[in-house]
């Protein structure tokens, strides 16, 4: 299955090779091989506790900060191993992340977006900073709602707005890949559909990986789907195929809701 997709190698963004991951002695991810295509949305689905979140956090090395974890295997971004001789800080700038719960900083809306630009020295002057903040907010479809109150606290926004702010914050530092870890799990249906719409737009310019336990979300919003269970990659294919003609019995059982 992977081989078919692999045939066109030119739009390959990330490659995960023989990935094993351990919390202490407990193995959470087992020999995962996967590819992430450029300008496409790859969904990671699977029942709770299957290692989805752990997996997506290996992609930008966020698990590095958790004690007692061990990783084996390679993860390539543009053919360079992100676990190799490379600056982790630079990796995290290139591979942005949006978390399960909206987590804006307790700063103003403007400062939330400006933060990433400032710490990475991405802008030279105030005018440019303002411009980049506006662009990020526009790209995250939030500009119209907040343009008159950029200096008010970000935590005064609604949950859905906060999550779009977090997306804007990630966009501002111009990543290549954006990882979404169940970005809608804390949101209502209307806010969810706005985020989904936004993610669809973003794939024109970014490569997107999204973890979700919402099957409909994966089916309607992604191009490729990986099904994980108990730390193993059961099946990976074009989303349409996974949801219409899965090769594995267990995939079919899961997507038809026989267990979850």
């Amino acid at each position, binding site marked *: 299955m992977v081989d078919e997709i692999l045939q066109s190698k030119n739009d390959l963004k990330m490659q995960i090779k023989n990935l094993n991951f351990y919390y202490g002695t407990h193995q959470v991810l087992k020999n995962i091989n996967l590819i992430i295509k450029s300008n496409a949305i790859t969904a990671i689905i699977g029942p709770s506790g299957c290692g989805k979140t752990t997996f997506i956090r290996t992609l930008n090395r*966020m698990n590095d900060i958790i*004690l007692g974890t061990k990783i084996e295997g390679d993860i390539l971004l543009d053919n360079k191993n992100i676990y190799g001789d490379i600056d982790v800080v630079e990796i995290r700038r*290139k591979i942005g*992340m949006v*978390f399960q719960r909206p*987590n804006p*900083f307790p700063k103003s809306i403007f400062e939330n977006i400006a933060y990433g630009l400032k*710490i990475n020295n991405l802008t030279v002057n105030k005018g440019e900073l303002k411009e980049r903040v506006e662009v990020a907010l526009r790209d995250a479809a939030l500009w119209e709602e907040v343009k008159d109150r950029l200096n008010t606290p970000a*935590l005064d926004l609604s949950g859905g707005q906060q999550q779009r702010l977090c997306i804007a914050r990630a966009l501002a*530092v111009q990543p290549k890949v954006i990882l979404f870890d169940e970005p809608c799990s804390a949101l209502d249906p209307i806010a969810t559909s706005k985020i989904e719409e936004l993610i669809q737009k973003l794939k024109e310019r970014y490569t997107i990986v999204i973890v979700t336990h919402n099957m409909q979300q994966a089916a309607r919003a992604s191009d490729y789907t990986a099904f994980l269970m108990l730390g193993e990659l059961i099946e990976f294919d074009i989303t349409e195929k996974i949801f219409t003609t899965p090769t594995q019995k267990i995939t079919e059982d899961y997507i038809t809701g026989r267990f979850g």
Partner: protein
Amino acid sequence: MNKRRVKEKLAYSFLITMISIIILSIGIMFYFIISRGIRVINWEFLTQMPRKAMTAGGISPAILGTFYLTMGAICFALPLGVSSAIYLNEYAIQNRLIRIIRVSINNLAGVPSVVFGLFGLAIFVKFLNFGVSILSGSLTLGILILPTIIRASEEALSAVPNSFREASLALGATKWQTIQKIVLPNSFSGILTGAILSIGRAAGETAPILFTAVTFYSMRLPKSIFSEVMTLPYHIYALMTEGTNPESQVPIAYGTALVLVLLVLGLNLIAVILRNQFRRSKKW
């Protein structure tokens, strides 16, 4: 049913009695100090030098001395304590060594203050040859309040949600940038509260400065950090134990006590106000 009610009533009255005893003792103590101290307090008392072998005049050198010592202590203990807390909370891998360090810090808080005094005498006064001075006293008091500052700072740091740290790191911030720009600003008021409370503690301590900083009586105000000083708590002690004229000394001692108590209360009040301010502005 009735029996349960009676028990309930009994328990309730018992608890009310207990809390009343506490409130009453605090009230009596304050009444005692205020009623005896208030008489001597006036502008002159606060701003003048003592006169006639401390039987008249003011306590300005003692107020100033306490101010110098506590400021010196906080200047020394705050950077040291906050840095240690940052290391322990943000950088240290939680292994046995770190646990031992934590236990040691907590035990430091339990060491009787006179022991700090002896330590200060041996190290700062004698070994480092700072003499009986503001410097020696400040350093000794600084060590005394170090555990409090470390603990308060650690608490303030760990109260910052991890999701903020993750968000910052995920944007390509280094650990230090994250601490500097996200963690510290959001724990600032907690650290400040801890610092103010420890200033209050340091201001009231007598034993640590007994051998390291204080003098019984000084003709003039301290000139440098190597001068010895008069302080409020020691002034009370001196007035009550030495001298020949208790009739005029005892009221001055109560006046000094009242000044000291008001000073410490004032500091605690500021700390409480700051903490409330902080809680109100905190939304996560």
